[in-house]
């Protein structure tokens, strides 16, 4: 049995531009979300060493976290076949096989989160062997979450009568 909606209730229309002040506020907040630098302090840079073992089909550890400015040494150890490690954005590429590990040292001066991938064909799931290398805070994710909240807030605000 259907319920009858009273004819007198009017659903507030979606009118984002009717009150331009709100729209401007939303725009300003959006720009802040995109451009505001992160206010946290990162610890002093130090030297970090990571032994990454590559196998079919994973890196172990697969998630690495460092502070911006850290002097990072990655050692790639392969446990079964020839594997590679290519770190997005840093232009680092290694390859190793059992008995012959490889090492590289670099400064993690670009903050953010980057994937590292296997760069030597090593089997079926080779294109999907992935790890995460995070330098400092994942600011993009935080900004994206803030953006999502802004969108919902803006949406609800626009529906007010």
């Amino acid at each position: 049995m259907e319920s009858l909606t009273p004819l007198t209730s009017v659903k507030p229309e979606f009118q984002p531009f009717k009150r331009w002040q709100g729209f401007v506020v939303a725009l300003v907040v959006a720009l802040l979300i995109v451009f505001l630098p992160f206010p946290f302090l990162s610890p002093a840079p130090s030297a970090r060493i990571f032994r990454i073992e590559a196998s079919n089909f994973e890196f172990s550890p697969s998630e690495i976290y460092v502070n911006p400015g850290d002097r990072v040494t990655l050692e790639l150890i392969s446990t079964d076949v020839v594997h590679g490690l290519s770190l997005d954005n840093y232009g680092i590429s290694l390859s190793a096989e059992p008995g012959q590990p490889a090492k590289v040292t670099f400064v993690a001066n670009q903050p953010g989160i980057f994937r590292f991938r296997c760069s030597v064909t090593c089997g079926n799931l080779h294109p999907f062997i992935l790890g995460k290398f995070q330098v400092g805070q994942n600011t993009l994710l935080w900004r994206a979450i803030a953006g999502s909240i802004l969108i919902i807030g803006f949406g609800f605000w626009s529906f007010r009568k």
Partner: protein
Amino acid sequence: MIRLEISRIPWVQTLLRNRWPQFLVRAVTFSGVIFTILAGLMGPLVGSYNFAVIFVWIAWWTALKLFFIPFGGRSWCSICPIPMSGEWLQRGGLITRAGKGWGMGKRWPRFFRGNWLQAWGFIIIGLFSAVTLTSARLTAFVLLFVVLLALVLSLIFERRSFCNYLCPIGGFIGLYAQTAPLELRVKDPAVCAEHTEKSCYINCPWGVYPLTLKTNTDCGLCMECLRVCSKDNIAVNLRPFGEDLKSKNQFRLDEVFLGLVMLSSVLIDSAIFLGSWGDLKSAAFAVGSIPWWIFVAAFLLVSLGILPGLYIFAVWIGVRLSGERSSLKQALSNQGQALIPLGLMAWIAFTVSFAFVKFSYVLPVLSDPLGLGWNLFGSAHLAWVGESTPFTAFIQVIILLVGLFWSFLSVWRASESSQPIKQAIPMIGFCFLFTLSMLWLLIG
């Protein structure tokens, strides 16, 4: 209703009315699928260097998700080679109007109509995706199977029953086509009312009566109706995005189910293929082993339990909060429209991560499609390790946020009670949660 009738432009008219351009493209895609199947069967075993794997799962999939669907709706279906042999046989000709052809022309059983089979088909694909996407031989067999299945079904059932009710790709293309800026509609309904011949319906391979076309879901943009309409009453229009969602009042439960399956699939595929969890990848890959069965259980739990459960819960709370005794089933159906833009943008964002990085494989495989040492275009040795860039991460965020906003509008539109804000809140929470999950999986 903002519409730009592009079929009025002379060169567009010729392009659409003349059967040759479409036929030539179809000939290319048809021989292309044959070539792809053979390349998959005879080419290199290494998946990333096999034409079949790269072209089906990277090139074609990207083209579908980034161009054909968002901009053309069901445009791929008009040139899709899979059902083509069946359609030619049914029609009795390659470039003629529908005539006496072969096929029993049975009606598709009522019980199997709707999106249900397509949703289940997509789940099954997902269970075996880790193996299929990476194995050339398996990709070829799957393609071959689908082509033969479509052919056989075309000889039993009428028209494009396979495309309408079984093809999993067709399922989600039809679902998301409702947001596309391209549509085929009748110009003046009054003209149709007086026209008794209905040649449009008789010639439509999709079994659609153009006058009743309210959404893009069932129309495969094959232009047959446009060609045979003696009153020139059919138009192809450009329109804003998401129009069908605005005008459609009734969504069916099977559409909602398909929408939910698409959401859970993009979450799970993002976890498997773009995540860093090696155990998950190995479990998904080792078909038949115990870890794989655990993966299957988890997959089904998410697709059939968690996501639908959360959706039902959100809708139910919304109905309760709105303080009315409106039907839950009604609300479940209507709120489902939010799943469409949410899912579409999530799949586009997934494709950006998945395919952009692997696009480097396309050039080498074009030069040496069969792994014989050829170098047709000089790009055989051009492979490089693709990478995600801050730019791709940024556009994925934008895409997902657009999806969130768009689904917000849809939730709003579907909230019909006297307290629409309260009714909308839980469902918006659902969309928000989904967006956060996708953000975390793709850029976290």
